[in-house]
């Protein structure tokens, strides 16, 4: 899939801003409400946020490390092409309105029963700000040639552009889940 970088940047920043705004909304709820679970296996709002934090813990330092290497300068076409795997993950994560298909999370990214509170959300907001910064730095690198290992395996790498796509839709998806956990 061919993606216009400027358009993607607009979408990413808009989704990140919405994420920050949603996170601030979440801060207005009580700790009890944020820890409330609809069923014993579904996640509370805080668990959704912590799950996102765990992904950020892996991806943000990796992205930063690799773009600092400055191996591949940005292309001048203004477009990047998604890879088949990157495109698959991106589309998998994209929440289609209200319908969220249930998916199993990798064991080390399962936040259930961890100790969570208001700092979980504050940490998430910091990660969003960091992601915004990293994307603007990433524009100097080639979004196709630069590859980022996935948390699944260091041998499975995605294009830098695809990594951001996957991450931002993943965030959107779990934030939707967090809001639902509150309203239930």
């Amino acid at each position: 899939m061919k993606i216009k970088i400027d358009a993607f940047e607009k979408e990413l920043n808009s989704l990140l801003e919405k994420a920050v705004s949603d996170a601030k909304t979440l801060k207005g709820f009580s700790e009890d409400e944020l820890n409330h679970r609809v069923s014993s296996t579904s996640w509370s709002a805080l668990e959704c946020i912590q799950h996102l934090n765990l992904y950020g813990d892996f991806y943000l330092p990796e992205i930063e490390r690799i773009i600092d290497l400055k191996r591949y300068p940005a292309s001048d076409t203004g477009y990047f092409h998604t890879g088949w795997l990157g495109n698959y993950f991106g589309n998998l994560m994209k929440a289609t309105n209200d319908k969220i298909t249930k998916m199993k999370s990798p064991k080390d990214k399962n936040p259930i029963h961890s100790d969570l509170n208001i700092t979980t959300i504050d940490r998430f907001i910091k990660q969003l700000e960091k992601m915004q910064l990293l994307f603007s730095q990433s524009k100097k690198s080639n979004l196709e040639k630069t590859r980022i290992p996935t948390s699944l395996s260091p041998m499975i790498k995605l294009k830098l552009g695809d990594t951001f796509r996957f991450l931002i839709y993943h965030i959107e998806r779990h934030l939707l889940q967090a809001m639902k956990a509150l309203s239930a």
Partner: protein
Amino acid sequence: MGRLLQATTKNPGQRIISKGEFLTREGETERNLYYIESGAVRAFLLTEHEEQIIRFGYKGSFINSLSSFLNGSPSPFYIEAIRKTEVRVLTKELLEKMVYENEESMKGYIALLETLAVQQIEREIDILTVSPSERLKRVLERSPTLFQEVPLKYIASYLRMTPETLSRIRNS
């Protein structure tokens, strides 16, 4: 410092906070100085990836977000109770009034600030000390009862090492 303590007992401000409750959050302006009567708190810096503990407060110590308290800037730190804690609260207004009241109070306040300045320098040396066992030794010399007051995982964070490393060097 005795006068400060006196002021806190006269001041009706007293709070009891439960484990996990905050005295101060990042971004807030610190308006109080707390004296811990019982329990324990931790002051930490939150980054995108972790909580870095910079200081503990337990029975008999004063604590607050000092930079924010002194210059009105937003607090970079959280101060959270690690178990049920009773504090006496001294507001900035009351402290200022008291400190400038007479020479005795001023001396007491200066002595407190001097103690704090030295503690900060010691802490800076802690951070620059490469050997984990050396860092532990330094901290235990200052606070021999630390392991009775604070859970291991927090001490490890303060010492800038993993809980596993801390257990290992304690047992060796």
